């Protein structure tokens, strides 16, 4: 029982991450991908915060517990993971903001935000570029100029 509960959180975090990853891969809609990316990251947050917990711990803000008999502090949860995750959340929102900015631009210049359609257009672009860039084989080209 303790064992199951003991790693329950870690399983949930895996599940959350995987839901996010699935969204990133499976969903053609770019905004959906951005959101899914967010989920993916929150999974990691859950993992970090879970590792900070101590049995019977309280928030790592120091106060005195006075249970009549004696004054004692704590136990406190581990503040370090909290700190790291604060940073990670900030990073997450920054990435989200940039992603959305890109998506807005994409909408502007492709007229859609569905990955598969964009992929098709990109492919056409590449074909055009390829043809434009093609030069006949150096030797044949020389031949042509030679006879000309």
């Amino acid at each position, binding site marked *: 029982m*303790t*064992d199951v509960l003991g*790693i*329950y*959180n870690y399983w*949930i975090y*895996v599940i959350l*991450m*995987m*839901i*996010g*990853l699935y*969204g990133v*891969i499976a*969903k053609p*809609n770019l*905004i*959906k991908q951005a*959101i*899914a990316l*967010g*989920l993916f990251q929150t999974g990691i*947050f*859950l993992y970090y*915060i*879970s590792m*900070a*917990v*101590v049995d019977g*711990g309280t*928030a*790592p*803000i120091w*106060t005195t*517990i006075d249970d009549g008999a004696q004054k*004692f*502090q*704590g*136990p*406190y949860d581990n*503040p*370090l*993971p*909290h*700190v790291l*995750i*604060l*940073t990670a*959340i*900030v*990073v*997450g*929102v*920054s990435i989200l903001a940039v992603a*959305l*900015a*890109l*998506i807005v*631009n994409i*909408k502007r210049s492709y007229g859609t935000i569905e990955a598969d359609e964009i992929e098709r257009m990109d492919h056409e672009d590449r074909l055009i570029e390829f043809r434009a860039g093609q030069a006949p084989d150096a030797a044949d080209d020389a031949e042509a100029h030679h006879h000309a």
Partner: protein
Amino acid sequence: MTAVVLIDTLLLLLVTVTAVAIIEVRNLYASAMLTSVYSLLLALVWVNMHAMDVAFTEAAVGGGISTILLIGTLVHTAREEKPLKQRVHWRALLLTALCGVALIYGTFDMPRFGDPKAPIHHFRVPEMMAQTVGFANSTAGKQPPPAGFDPAEYRSFNGAVASVPVDPTDTGWRENSVLAQHGIMLPKVLGDEVHAAHPAEADHHQHPADDFNGHVPNSVTSLLAAYRGYDTMFETTVIFTAGMSLIMLLRRPRREGYLQRSAPLADQPVLRVVAKMSIPFILLFGLYVITHGELGPGGGFQGGVVVACAFILFALIFGRPALYRVLPPPVCDLLTGLGVLMYAGTGAACLLLGGNFLDYAQLNSLSPGDGEALGMTLVEYGVGLTVSMVMVTIFNQLAEEQAK
């Protein structure tokens, strides 16, 4: 403890369900809204796990800012996700399943949830917490860590010994624990020696500091701004970068940005009055949160977001031209930079005063503790400034796009 686990279990189930819903629902607005619900649920989870600052941030960012951003984008991209050919993307499912199995495989050897014997709870962090940060006359801030450690102590890092009594009333194992020496991760019975240790603290900060072994009460803040202050500086830089990127990608020439029709909400008297009344208080609260970070949950980041919300609310009600009059974009950009500069500048100041970079103790040669307090406050303000201004910038840029 059982309570924690129980609530935790239920909340996480809810979270998971929400996550699935977010991915599967086709209406993007719905999905955006669900995202904010998801964030609020997570905030509850964090609270349940006593991660107050994280909860605060999650609520502010996930519940607030992210949602605003998403809506702001949705307005001029798409409202519906286009229907998929097949409901389930099998390759993705397979891949994620494999990945998940691998990750779960890794969890079996982890210290159990809440196991106080987990290495992280008694290797470095307790040593840090045993230091004094941000208190008057506390020269003891930088003792070297105890030399080496006995590996035998930490044998039980893998789940093998998870048989920690879950019953809080049974405190027998606490006294005879090898960790008593650190006494932070584990409860510590207080005697009078503490008062002797830091006589001058009581009259320094107006809080019952004398019960603590000379540490800023909110140890999250002390870690964030002091021990790992350098990370936080770059965290601020990340936000700044995000702001710059949005400007580069979205900002239109000044003219267009300014010629905005005023917001439709402007002629709603109730909203106007409510906004006028509440904005000052929101700002005040924001500043309070920034300043109060050392004592309770909160700090530069959370406070900054709150401040930003005030501006955004203002823009929503009275239209962005009004906001631009109050806070012209160029000024906004400069303030964004100023925040980062405040942070890095504090660090540089310590360097110029002969210490290492970000060695706040240098700021007050007489009482290093005060120096540390001062430094932490300064950087918190820096963070707050940058965060609020960047949030406003991001909102502006997306809104400009929308208005076109």
